[in-house]
């Protein structure tokens, strides 16, 4: 316990005018779980990237195991026994699990022998930590939750002694997160050191030994987890008191705006992902779809938004059908007042290589407001982007910055700002606050409720039970592609949990 596994001393790092880290000191004791919390853009990922050799600090020292070290590349970090599970996975999409795991650690010219060795080693790791993944599955076909397991296995495979996890539970369900935490505890018992970045303060309370809080690039406090509270941490992060659950009035549901009937969707291999699902969303209500990731919610959202082929069923938008052949023109649906915040903001909702202002018109780029004939009206686009940046407090407030350089939470705000500001009649949102800090969650929830109060129909899919419960007027639970139950906003977590696990209606109701 006594010796520090990692010590960071006086770390500074700027990106142009943005001071991402200023004079950071951090000490992480060996064999402990150390949490780091802070708002979006506070500099957490930057600090860890410095430790992992992705970035070099402008000044400051790093000590690992008591000795000063210089970490210039991630290979240096790996050699020092530091492993990292990234906020945004760094896997090769069309490789198999096994291929991804040995990538960069092939210790033979001929792949064959290393593959055989890797397979048995992987098998051992999987059994030891209960991280089951099919080694021959192709990454892009795995749900995000499993992709993350691959990331963890990858670090362990490389012999990591110090494991950095950047928002590992952002994509997990409570059950999956619990599983992850059991794994982390087991790793800790074996003497490994873990640094955990998360926005979920409950997780910090449940699993860490110590916790540090960052705000706007500085380290503002470090506490023993036992001696602090969620409220105190939230306040330290944001610098003001935060509502952890947004107040909302009674909903006044109006006419049906979105109606889904007997919808069935199959994936490319012919497996039924959405099985005969029917429900309505009325103006003035938020319908939440709960469920463990991978139970058909993603496919449901894609089918409704016209970008995935549905084999049968019907979706009506304001009483008129949506083309479900998978060839629908999303532009036309936008014109009809359907806005869609996709789950996967990195590949679908944003073009990371674009400047912020370019992303703030994605999908609305053929709107007259942004055009002068065939030309983009650069001034109008800029003004519009600045306006959204201000309204949604997107940081840093520079519309010329490349989108990839915004922190995760701010990227999400870029998408939300774009879709909400179109003033749609129906808004469908996948994972509204994935990777978003407490202050911003409060903000986004307030916005969603404000949309509801203006009479819009809002459909929210989230794996966060807390989020579903605090936002929804009605909760649908999906399991294995079917809607297995509907509950009111006062449903208990236990009740929903059982439904999500596929326990039948009557039993769950009791």
């Amino acid at each position: 316990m006594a010796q520090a596994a990692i010590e960071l001393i006086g770390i500074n790092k700027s990106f142009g005018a943005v001071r991402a880290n200023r004079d950071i000191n951090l000490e992480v004791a060996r064999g402990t779980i150390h949490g780091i919390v802070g708002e979006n853009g506070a500099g957490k990922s930057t600090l860890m990237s410095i430790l992992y050799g992705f970035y070099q600090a402008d000044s400051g020292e790093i000590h690992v195991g008591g000795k000063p070290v210089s970490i210039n590349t991630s290979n240096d970090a790996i050699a020092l026994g530091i492993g990292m599970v990234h906020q945004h996975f760094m896997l090769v999409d069309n490789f198999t699990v096994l291929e991804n795991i040995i990538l960069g650690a092939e210790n033979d010219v001929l792949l064959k022998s290393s593959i055989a060795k890797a397979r048995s080693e992987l098998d051992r790791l999987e059994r030891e930590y209960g991280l089951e993944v099919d080694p021959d599955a192709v990454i892009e076909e795995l749900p995000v939750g499993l992709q993350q397991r691959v990331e963890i296995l990858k670090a362990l495979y490389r012999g990591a002694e110090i494991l950095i996890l950047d928002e590992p539970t952002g994509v997990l369900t409570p059950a999956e997160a619990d599983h992850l935490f059991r794994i982390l505890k087991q790793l800790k018992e074996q003497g490994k050191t873990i640094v955990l970045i998360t926005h979920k303060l409950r997780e910090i309370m449940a699993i860490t030994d110590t916790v540090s809080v960052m705000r706007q690039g500085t380290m503002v406090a470090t506490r023993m987890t036992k001696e602090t509270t969620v409220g105190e941490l939230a306040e330290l992060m944001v610098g003001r008191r935060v509502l952890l659950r947004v107040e909302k009035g009674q909903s006044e549901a109006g006419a049906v705006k979105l109606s889904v009937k007997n919808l069935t969707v199959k994936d490319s291999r012919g497996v039924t992902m959405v099985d005969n699902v029917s429900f309505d969303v009325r103006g003035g209500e938020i319908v939440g779809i709960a469920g463990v990731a991978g139970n058909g919610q993603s496919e449901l959202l894609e089918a409704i938004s016209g970008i995935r082929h549905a084999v049968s069923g019907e979706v009506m938008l304001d009483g008129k059908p949506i083309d479900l052949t998978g060839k629908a023109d999303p532009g036309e649906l936008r014109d009809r007042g359907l806005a869609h915040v996709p789950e996967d903001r990195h590949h679908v909702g944003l073009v990371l290589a674009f400047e912020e202002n370019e992303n703030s018109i994605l999908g609305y780029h053929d709107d007259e407001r942004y055009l002068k004939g065939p030309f983009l009206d650069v001034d109008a686009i800029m003004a519009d982007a600045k306006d959204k940046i201000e309204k949604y407090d997107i940081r840093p407030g520079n519309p010329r910055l490349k989108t990839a350089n915004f922190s995760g939470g701010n990227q999400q705000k870029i998408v939300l700002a774009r879709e909400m500001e179109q003033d749609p009649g129906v808004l469908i949102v996948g994972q509204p606050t994935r990777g978003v800090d407490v202050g911003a969650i409060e903000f986004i929830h307030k916005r969603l409720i404000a949309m509801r109060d203006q009479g819009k129909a809002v459909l929210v899919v989230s794996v966060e039970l807390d989020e579903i419960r605090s936002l929804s007027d009605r909760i649908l639970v999906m399991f294995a592609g079917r809607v297995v139950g509907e509950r009111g906003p006062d449903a208990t977590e236990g009740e929903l949990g059982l439904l999500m696990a596929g326990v039948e209606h009557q039993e769950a109701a009791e």
Partner: protein
Amino acid sequence: MSTPYAKLPAWADYGLIPLINLAVAFIVAGFVVMLVGENPFRAAVILVEGAFGKGTGIAFTLFYATTFIFTGLSVAVAAHCSLFNIGTEGQAYIGGLGIALVCLSLDSVLPWWAIFPIAIVAAAAFGALWGLIPAYLQAKRGSHIVITTIMFNFIAASVMVYLLVGALKPAGSQAPQTRNFLAGAELPKLNWIIELFGAKIRSAPLNICFLLALVMAFLVWLLIWRTRLGYEMRTYGHSPKAARYAGISETRIIITAMMISGALAGMMALNPVMGDQHNVAIDFVSGAGYVGIAVALMGRLHPVGIVLAAILFGMLYQGGAELAFEMPAISRDMIVIIQGLVILFAGALEHMFRPYIQALFASVSPKSVGMQAVKGKGA
């Protein structure tokens, strides 16, 4: 954050790295020159003087550069939509057919300034058509554009041989080429511009296509960074999934991008055909389409970079010809080797030195690494 490598400041990215690549290419080329027993420094002097030393040399350099600007732009437009158009060669060749048809039928009745716009349209249309077919096959049938465009280069070559030894050849002629155009289809030279600066020019083919190429470079910039179509092409180029989400039709965008790319390739033919040879001869493109790939890569797909890279390659062509002339030990083929080395280091191995330079920057001034060029490419 999601970039695995730290970033370099823009000046290093766009200035230092290309210069280092170029220097290495020339050093290796120097060894090749030494191998054949010539003095590499003298060779370098001849090369540069041949290209820029005299007025005639400059005019030739810019004439070649004109050709490469067109093919470089062609490759770049497709590349912004993540399409690798290797068919610039064939599209330019077929573009020449369009020009031949216009010139042969109109050169006796119209003056050059009336024929020129018609020929531009014909060249662009024929090139676009030759890009359309592979694009259609990619969009509708999933046939890979790299394969189909290469195949279309061969088809273009066969079609042109067939026509140039047949229908397009004047009766009784032995040469596989069209008859020479009349004065109405000859474009004005630009040599007087260079002469304004006091240089003397014997005879050189530099013509108004050079200005057309510069205008097209500007229009391509406008297209890519300032129009809705360019925005859609770039969106698709970066992420087909995001394009789908944004309501951009995959079929439409692939076909449009390839037609524009083909049109630019076709326009390349104007320069040698109407500006210089005044006929369409067999194999008149002679590899300019492939050079376009190197030019586009070296120019980082940006029109300004492409113009600069095209001038560099123009210099290699012109200076290389002088070199082969002045140093008998250096054959025409050796010049091709030198050009190949530039393509190799500046194009294919573009990122070879990057990690070292980054490491260097990281140790010398860590602050500069990670600094992001806030300005976009289009700025």
